[in-house]
């Protein structure tokens, strides 16, 4: 990139720093938002846990001191807990409700509880329930309440083992809560597990009461004071169906065990019925955190947007600078080209003079020899060849002189198709034979004020060039039309709104990119030395004339497919015309026409 653009955009380093800052800011914002969310989650979890514990505690409290018509309140509590979070394990609360119902209807028979349709019942064993369990297949419900255990077969008994807190229990009288509700005694195969409730209300094994040797517990019963537990045992595998029946009865006093409870910090002993019921106000935490995060995100987003717009402005500035630099480069190239042409013009005039002198001598000498000797046969042929060579030389010099020659032709309003037709007709026999020539004048082509002779020269050069590029085979397409879009021109045309366009397309080999920048240079030719008309002046002449006349040149080429040259002629003539093309007033006659060569 040319250095000019740097000087045009001096804030580049600052903006690069800003870009880094932008990424840093983005990262910070993301981290901040993430930590906010995490914190919010933590807070919510903590809060939720507290709420849940409290709910459970309230339910337990309600259960521990049963009062009539308390059921709706507990159901409401459970509903609150359920709303709190869907994944909160509500099974224990649900079983509590069942137990409550069991309690609350003392008049009913204990084997007819109203338990059948509680929707919160899981289909799996609810082993962590303190006083109810449902079989995995949903057919058996066991209730442990009020020193009693009730097994309610919904269909028929399951053969699967029954567990509380991971302890496999032995049917039929498996476990019982004591009167205070602090303990559950559960019969295992060879001992009795005494369970207590931890802070979350889950029963955990508190102590294991092992009967004497060779005794196996088969039934339990709590003393109404809640402190003494009677364990009926069987000896040596002899079953004992009832505790009252024969067999050893061990009485455990757990009063002395209560000291051990201090460390356990029983969850429900802290239950406080006066605690306000926690409604979904908990959501405010989430709202606050989310709102904070959104606010931060908004601020950050705003900053990012502002920064992006600054960056965009910077990029636009850079693009503009690059465009200007490219423009400058083009202008410089055009200038260099023009200077080259001017120098060549001077040089060409000098060369032309010397050439013409030499040619003049050759020509005259040949004519003198012919007159003096009147040769015939081969010498005559040789003389003829000399004459032809001189003629070619003259043409060459004339084309070179095109560089230094001023023109004084006037511009007239011309129909472009007429000119193109004339040129095609002129060239047809000598240059265009063998080619398919397509001419299309269907497009509306405006009349333009143009120096007809010079336009003809341009067309001649382009057509001859195209014909030679195709080497006698192919299709030459010539289209005239009016246009308002000059497109991307190598040489931008004068005028600013409307142009007449002549496009000349060949199906030749196209112009390879490496020679593309040079094709308009004088004396540049791709034709091999020795071929005719390989002066390398054709396109250079086109360029020079176009430059002087305000024509535009557009070139589309693709190697192997052909090239299309477009000449754009402004409909409105720039006024005055190029200084070189207009005669100076007073020194020259105004209406002199250049004779057509």
């Amino acid at each position, binding site marked *: 990139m040319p250095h000019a653009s740097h000087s045009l955009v001096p804030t580049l380093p600052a903006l690069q720093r800003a870009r880094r800052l932008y990424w840093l800011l983005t990262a910070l914002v993301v981290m901040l938002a993430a930590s906010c969310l995490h914190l919010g989650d933590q807070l919510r979890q903590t809060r939720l846990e507290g709420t849940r514990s409290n709910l459970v505690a309230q339910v337990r409290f309600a259960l521990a001191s049963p009062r009539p018509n308390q059921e709706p309140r507990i159901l409401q509590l459970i509903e609150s807990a359920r709303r709190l979070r869907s994944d909160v394990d509500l099974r224990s609360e649900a079983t509590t409700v069942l137990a409550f119902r069991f309690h609350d209807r003392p008049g009913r028979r204990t084997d007819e509880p109203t338990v059948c349709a509680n929707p919160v019942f899981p289909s799996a064993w609810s082993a962590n329930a303190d006083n109810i369990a449902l079989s995995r297949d949903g057919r058996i419900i066991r209730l442990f309440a009020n020193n009693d255990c009730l097994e309610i077969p919904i269909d028929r008994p399951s053969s699967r083992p029954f567990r509380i807190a991971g302890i496999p229990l032995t049917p039929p009288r498996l476990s019982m809560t004591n009167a205070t509700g602090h303990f559950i005694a559960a019969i295992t195969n060879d001992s009795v597990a005494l369970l207590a409730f931890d802070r979350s209300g889950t029963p955990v094994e508190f102590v294991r009461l092992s009967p004497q040797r060779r005794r196996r517990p088969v039934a339990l019963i709590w003393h109404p004071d809640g402190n003494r537990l009677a364990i009926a045992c069987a000896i040596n595998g002899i079953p004992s169906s009832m505790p009252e029946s024969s067999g050893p009865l061990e009485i455990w006093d757990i009063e002395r065990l209560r000291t051990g409870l201090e460390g356990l910090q029983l969850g429900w002993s802290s239950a406080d019925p006066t605690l306000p019921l926690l409604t979904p106000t908990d959501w405010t935490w989430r709202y606050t955190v989310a709102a904070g995060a959104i606010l931060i995100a908004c601020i950050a987003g705003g900053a990012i947007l502002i920064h992006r717009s600054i960056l965009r402005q910077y990029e636009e500035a850079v693009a503009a600078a690059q465009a200007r630099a490219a423009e400058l480069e083009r202008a410089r190239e055009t200038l260099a080209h023009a200077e080259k042409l001017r120098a060549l013009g001077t040089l060409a*005039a*000098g060369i*032309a*003079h*010397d*050439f*013409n*002198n030499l*040619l*003049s*001598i*050759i*020509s*005259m*000498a040949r*004519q*003198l020899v012919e*007159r003096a000797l009147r040769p015939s046969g081969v010498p005559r042929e040789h003389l003829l060849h000399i004459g032809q060579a*001189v003629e070619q*030389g*003259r043409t060459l*010099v004339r084309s070179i*002189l095109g560089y*230094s*020659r*001023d*023109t*004084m032709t006037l511009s007239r309003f011309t129909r472009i198709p007429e000119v193109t037709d004339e040129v095609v007709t002129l060239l047809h026999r000598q240059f265009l034979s063998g080619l398919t020539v397509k001419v299309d004048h269907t497009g509306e082509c405006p009349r333009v004020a143009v120096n007809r002779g010079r336009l003809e020269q341009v067309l001649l050069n382009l057509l001859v060039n195209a014909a030679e590029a195709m080497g006698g085979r192919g299709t030459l397409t010539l289209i005239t039309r009016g246009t308002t879009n000059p497109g991307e021109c190598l040489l931008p045309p004068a005028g600013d709104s409307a142009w007449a366009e002549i496009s000349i397309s060949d199906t030749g080999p196209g112009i390879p990119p490496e020679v593309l920048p040079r094709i308009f240079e004088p004396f540049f030719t791709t034709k091999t030395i020795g071929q005719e008309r390989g002066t390398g002046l054709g396109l250079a002449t086109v360029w020079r004339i176009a430059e002087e006349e305000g024509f535009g040149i557009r070139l589309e080429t693709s190697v192997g497919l052909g090239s299309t040259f477009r000449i754009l002629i402004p409909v409105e003539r720039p006024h005055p015309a190029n200084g070189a093309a207009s005669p100076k007033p007073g020194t*020259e*006659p105004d209406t*002199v026409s*250049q*004779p057509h060569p």
Partner: protein
Amino acid sequence: MQPTPIRGHVLLIEDNPVQARLYQDAFPDFSWTWVTTGTAAVAALAEHLPDLILLDHVLDAGESGLAFLPKLKSLAAHIPVVVVSGTLAIADQLRALSGPNAAHYVIEKPVDLDRLEQTIDTALRECGLGEAVAALRSLERAELIEAGDRERLFTERLARQHALLNRLRGSTARPNISQLATEFSVDRRSIRRDLQDLVTRGQLPPEILAREDEANSRDS
């Protein structure tokens, strides 16, 4: 060998010796004065007036033929000038051909002999003296000058001499003075005096006059 009759005298201003030699070889029936610069041409003109000036545009010592055109015209306004050039652009050619100090012809190099011959013929026949006579006559008519005998005689004499020159140029045949006198409606003395003038100016070979004298003496 029969000496070639001289059709006229040409002042050739040309820097290339080979080209100059070719001109002379191509037109052996002219006598040639060859100079290589405009300055030398001016000197040559002061010495002897030619019938035609052949002027190359690019000359030795960096001189330009066209630059000398006004000077040449001031010294010999009635002598036709043919400019030969290999480099003149159309505009320069037009400049050379226009205005009071105009050349009569511009011929482009490489020179075609046939065209040059035609040009020189036309220039000798119709330019120079012929133009001067035509201008004088037209002036007499236009200005309605009450021309006295002497003035009219001068114009007529000039016209007659030009006609004689055109007729006798390049010929060595003896002119029939009586026939010429009848043709121009003057007496034979006038014709003889015209021929004498032409020979004096070098425009006709002295042989014509000599033979004429002989013929006259034979006649008488």
